[in-house]
C-alpha cells in the first residue's frame, strides 16, 4: 500500500494527452493499478477523491466522462454512452473497455518486461563484446608491436648476413690472394732453387776441374800386391761383348725372377683349383634334389645340366690340367650357375624360415591354430586307434600265451605267486584292522555301561529332586537371592553356570535347604551339556543335559553375564526369562 504515493496521476491531471499514464514506474504493483481503475467507476469516499485531487470530482464528472469517452473512442473502443449524445452510461461497455484496457495493460507490462530483460541481455552482451573488442584491440596492438620488433630483427639479421657475406667474400678474396702469393712464391722458389742448383753445379764442375785436373800426387793407391778376385776370375776388358753379356745376365736375372714367380703362381693356382674342385663337388652333392626342379621347369635348366655333364666329363679327363683359357668360360659359367642355384636354394630356405617366423605373428596365426587343432584331433584319433591296436595285440598275445608252453606257465606261476603274496599282505592288514575294531568295540561297550550307570544315578538324583520339589511346592523359600548370588560368586570362574542358574528359577529355593555340593554339580552338568534355550525352562530341567548339544547359546549368555556380573542384575534377567 506504500506505493500509492508513487502513482503518477499528476501527470495525467496536468492535462497531457498521454494515453499510457503508467510508464516507467516498474515498482507499481498491478493491485494498486486495479484499485485505481476501479476507483474510476466505483463510487468511493470523498476523501479519496480529495486524495487524488485532480482528475474527477463531483463538479467535473460529466466532463471527465466525456473526456474518457473521447479518449476511448479515439483509441478505437466503443463509446461508453448508451446512445450517442445521450448522457446515459453503458456500464457493460465501460466494463468491457476496462477489461480491454486491463488486458492491454497486462500485455504491455509483459512486453515491457520482456523488452527490459532483452535490453539487459543486450546490455550485458554489449559489455561482453566491448570487453572482447578491447582485448582484441590490445592483442592487435601487441602483435603489431611484435611484428615491428620482428621486422626490426629481420632487418638486423639481414644486415648482419650482408656483412657476413661481405666478410666471406673478403676472406675468399684473401684466400685467393694468398693462394696466388703462395703459388707465385713457390714458382719463384723453384726457380731460385734451380738457379742455385745450376750455380752449384757450375761450381762443382769448376771444383772438379780444379781438383782433378791438377796432377794430384796425393791421389793414389798404395797396395803391397794386388789380391785375386773373390770369384777367382780375372777382370775382363770392357768391350761391347761384355756389355752384351751384362744385358744378357740382367735379363737372365729378370727371367729367373719371373719364372720363380710363375712357379709360385702355378702352385697357388693348383691349390686354388683343388679347392674349387672340392667346392664344386660339394655343391653338386648338395644340389641333386634341387637340380630336378629346374630341369622340369625350363629349358635353361636342361642346358645347364647338360653343361654340367660336359664339365663332369671334363673333370674325369683331368681338365684341371688344361690351361685356364680353354675351359675358363665353361668353368666360370657352370660355377656361377651352380652358385646361383645354391643361392636360390638358400634364399628359399631363408624365406621358409622367415615365413615360419612371421606366420606366428601374422593373421596366419589363426589358420595355423586351426590346423593345429585339426592335427591334434587327428593325432588323438590315431592314438586311440593305436591303443586299440595295442589292446587287441595284447589280447592276442595273451591268447597265444595261454596256449603256450612251459615258459608261459612259469610266467603264470610267477604272477600267481606275486598275487598270492599280495593277497597275504592284504589279509594281514585286514586282520590287524579287525583287531583294532574289536578293541574299539570293547571300549565302546565299557563306555556304554558306564553311561548307563551314571544315568541310573542321575535318575535317582532326579527322583530325589522331584520329590524335594514336590515337597517344597507349598512352602516358599526366602533366602533365594543371597544364595543365588553367593552361588554365582562361587562359580565365578565358570561363568557358563550363570545361564543355568538363570534358567532354574527355583533352583535356589531348592538349593537353600539342600546341602551345598549337589546343586553345583548339577549346574555343572547343565553347563557342560549346554542347555537348549528353546526348551521351556521349567520343563524337564533334569533332562536338559542329555538332550542339547548347543554350546553357542550358553556362551552368548555368559558374555552378557560377564558385563553385568552382579546378583541383582542376574535376578532381573532371571525374572525376564521366566516364561
Amino acid at each position, binding site marked *: 500500500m506504500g506505493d500509492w504515493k508513487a502513482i503518477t496521476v499528476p501527470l495525467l491531471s496536468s492535462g497531457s494527452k498521454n494515453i499510457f499514464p503508467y510508464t516507467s514506474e516498474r515498482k507499481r504493483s498491478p493491485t494498486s493499478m486495479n484499485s485505481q481503475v476501479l476507483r474510476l467507476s466505483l463510487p468511493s469516499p470523498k476523501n479519496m477523491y480529495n486524495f487524488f485531487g485532480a482528475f474527477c470530482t463531483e463538479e467535473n464528472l460529466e466532463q471527465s466522462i466525456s473526456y474518457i469517452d473521447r479518449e476511448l473512442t479515439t483509441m478505437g473502443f466503443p463509446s461508453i454512452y448508451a446512445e450517442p449524445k445521450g448522457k446515459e452510461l453503458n456500464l457493460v461497455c465501460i466494463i468491457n473497455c476496462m477489461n480491454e484496457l486491463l488486458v492491454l495493460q497486462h500485455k504491455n507490462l509483459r512486453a515491457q518486461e520482456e523488452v527490459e530483460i532483452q535490453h539487459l541481455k543486450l546490455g550485458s552482451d554489449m559489455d561482453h563484446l566491448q570487453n572482447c573488442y578491447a582485448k582484441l584491440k590490445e592483442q592487435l596492438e601487441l602483435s603489431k608491436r611484435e611484428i615491428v620488433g620482428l621486422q626490426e630483427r629481420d632487418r638486423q639479421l639481414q644486415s648482419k648476413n650482408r656483412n657476413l657475406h661481405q666478410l666471406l667474400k673478403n676472406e675468399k678474396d684473401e684466400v685467393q690472394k694468398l693462394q696466388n702469393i703462395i703459388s707465385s712464391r713457390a714458382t719463384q722458389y723453384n726457380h731460385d732453387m734451380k738457379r742455385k742448383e745450376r750455380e752449384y753445379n757450375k761450381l762443382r764442375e769448376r771444383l772438379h776441374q780444379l781438383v782433378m785436373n791438377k796432377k794430384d800426387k796425393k*791421389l793414389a793407391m798404395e797396395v803391397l800386391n794386388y789380391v785375386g778376385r773373390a770369384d777367382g776370375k780375372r777382370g775382363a776388358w770392357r768391350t761391347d761383348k761384355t*756389355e752384351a753379356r751384362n744385358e744378357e745376365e740382367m735379363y737372365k736375372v729378370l727371367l729367373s725372377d719371373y719364372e720363380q714367380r710363375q712357379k709360385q703362381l702355378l702352385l697357388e693356382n693348383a691349390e686354388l683349383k683343388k679347392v674349387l674342385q672340392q667346392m664344386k663337388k660339394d655343391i653338386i652333392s648338395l644340389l641333386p634334389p634341387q637340380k630336378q626342379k629346374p630341369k622340369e621347369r625350363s629349358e635353361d635348366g636342361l642346358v645347364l645340366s647338360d653343361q654340367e655333364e660336359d664339365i663332369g666329363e671334363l673333370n674325369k679327363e683331368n681338365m684341371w690340367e688344361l690351361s685356364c683359357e680353354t675351359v675358363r668360360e665353361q668353368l666360370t659359367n657352370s660355377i656361377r650357375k651352380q652358385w646361383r642355384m645354391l643361392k636360390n636354394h638358400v634364399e628359399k630356405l631363408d624365406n621358409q624360415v622367415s615365413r615360419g617366423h612371421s606366420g606366428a605373428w601374422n593373421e596366419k596365426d589363426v589358420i595355423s591354430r586351426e590346423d593345429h587343432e585339426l592335427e591334434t584331433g587327428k593325432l588323438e584319433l590315431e592314438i586311440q586307434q593305436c591303443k586299440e591296436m595295442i589292446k587287441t595285440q595284447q589280447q592276442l598275445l595273451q591268447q597265444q600265451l595261454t596256449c603256450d608252453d612251459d615258459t608261459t606257465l612259469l610266467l603264470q606261476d610267477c604272477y600267481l605267486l606275486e598275487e598270492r603274496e599280495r593277497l597275504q599282505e592284504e589279509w594281514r592288514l585286514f586282520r590287524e584292522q579287525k583287531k583294532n575294531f574289536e578293541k574299539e568295540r570293547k571300549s565302546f561297550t565299557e563306555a556304554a555301561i558306564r553311561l548307563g550307570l551314571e544315568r541310573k544315578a542321575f535318575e535317582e538324583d532326579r527322583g530325589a529332586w522331584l520329590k524335594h520339589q514336590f515337597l517344597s511346592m507349598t512352602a516358599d523359600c526366602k533366602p533365594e537371592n543371597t544364595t543365588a548370588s553367593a552361588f554365582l560368586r562361587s562359580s565365578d570362574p565358570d561363568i557358563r553356570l550363570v545361564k543355568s542358574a538363570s534358567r532354574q528359577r527355583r533352583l535356589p529355593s531348592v538349593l537353600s535347604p539342600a546341602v551345598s555340593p549337589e546343586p553345583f554339580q548339577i549346574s555343572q552338568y547343565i553347563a557342560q551339556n549346554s542347555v537348549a534355550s528353546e526348551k521351556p525352562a521349567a520343563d524337564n530341567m533334569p533332562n536338559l543335559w542329555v538332550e542339547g548339544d548347543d554350546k553357542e547359546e550358553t556362551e552368548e549368555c555368559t558374555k552378557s553375564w560377564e558385563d553385568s556380573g552382579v546378583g541383582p542384575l542376574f535376578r532381573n534377567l532371571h525374572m525376564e526369562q521366566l516364561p
Partner: protein
Amino acid sequence: PWFLEVFKARILPQLSPVLSPQASCIQHRLVVRDASSLQILQLYTCLDQIQYIEWSSDSLFILCAMYKRGIVQVWSLEQPDWHCKIDEGSAGLVASCWSPDGRHILNTTEFHLRITVWSLCTKSVSYIKYPKACQQGMAFTKDGRYMAVAERRDCKDFISIFVCNNWQLLRHFDTETQDLFGIEWAPNGCVLAAWDTCLEYKVLLYSLDGRLLSSYRAYEWPLGVKGIAWSPSSQFLAIGSFDEKVRILNHVTWKKITEFDHPATISSKKTIVYKEVEKSPTVDTERLTFPPTRALASSLFSTQSKYDISQVPVSLQYIKPVADRANPKVGVGMLAFSADNCFLATKNDNIPNAVWIWDIRKLKLSVVLEQLCTIQAFQWDPCQPRLAVCTGSSRVYLWSPAGCVVVQVPGEGDFQITSISWHCSGDSMLLLSKENFCVCYLEREERKGVKTCCPV
C-alpha cells in the same frame, strides 16, 4: 743371455759378416777379436784416428776410413803384413764402403763430386760422376751383382744401374721425382724402390731394366714418405709416412693391401700390450755389509724393470708434434720386417716409447711394447722372429711371439745402449753405446754367464 765385458770403442765396432771375428778400434788402433772368446786376433795401427771401419763381404779385409785426412787404409786378416792405402787427395772424402765382392772400395768425395771405385785386384780406378747427395743415394742388390746410384744432373733426378762385376753402366734413366730422397733394392734384386722428398708423397718402382713398374701416391699435400722397408721375400713394401700410417703394397699389382694406423689408444682386445715397469730391488737388510760390496752398491742404485701386460684399452704417451719446425717428430720413420716375413715392427715418432709389432699374416696389430724411455733402435734377429729393442738405457729388450724379456747389461756405470747389431748367426748381438760396446750372447739353452776378457 750372457755378456762379455764392456769394451771401449770410439767408433762403432763391426761383426764380420761371415766368420767369427769382430773388429773394434780405439783411436788409431784397430783391434780384431774372436767373436766367441773375444781374444785378440790382430792389432793394426793406422795413420790417424779411425772414423769408420767396415768388413769386406768375405771377412778377409777391413777398411778403416779417416775422413779428416781423406785416407782409407785396408788390412788383410790372412796376411797381416799386407796393407793398402788409398788417398783421395784434395778431393776429400766423406764416405767409404766396400763393394759387395769385397775387392773394390767406393769412396765418395767431398761435395759429392764423384764416387771413386778403387779395385784391389787391378790398379784400375773408376769414377761415377754427379752422385746425388741424399740420404740413401747408393744401393747394392742383395746378391751383389748390381748397384744403383741416384744422380742429379741439370736439376733432374736420374738413377744409374751398374754391374758390380766390371762397373759398367747397365741402365740410366730419369725419375719422375722432384727431389729424389732414397733408393732401395728389393731383396730379390729385381725391383728398385725410389721415393721422393717428404714434401711430396711419391714412391716409384722400377724394374732392373729401368722400366717404371708402378708409382704410388697416397695423398698430395701433407708431408709424405718417411721411411720404407722391403719384406725379405720381396712380397711387400711397407711405406711409413708422416701421417702416422704404414701402407703396405703388394708385389703383383703394386697396389695398397692395407694401411696400419698408429693411434695413441689401443682398444683392440686382440692386441697384447707389454708395458715396461720399473721395480726397485728389494734388499735384505740383514745381508747388508759395511762397507757394501761394489756389486751390491751398484745393484742398490740401479733399478730393474720388467714387463707387465696392460689391460686394453691402453693410451700411450703421445707427444704433440711442433708444427712450425722442420722435420717434425711425427710419423713412422723406423720400420722393419722380421726375417720370416711374418712380423713388421714400426715406431711412430710422436709415440716415441712404443714399438708396434704387426702380424703380416693377419694384417693386424699383434703386440705393442710400451717402454719407459724413447726407443733408440730396434733390429730383428736375422734367423728367427725375435726383435731386439734398445732405449738408451742399460737394458736390452727382446720380443718373440713367445713373450718379452728384459736383459740387464751387467757391470758398473751407465751403459746407454744406443744401437744394436745382430750377428748373422742370430746367436749374439753387439750392444753399442757412445763409447763402449759389449757382446750379448743368446743361447738356446738360456745358459747364463759372463765371460770376462781383459780390455785392451
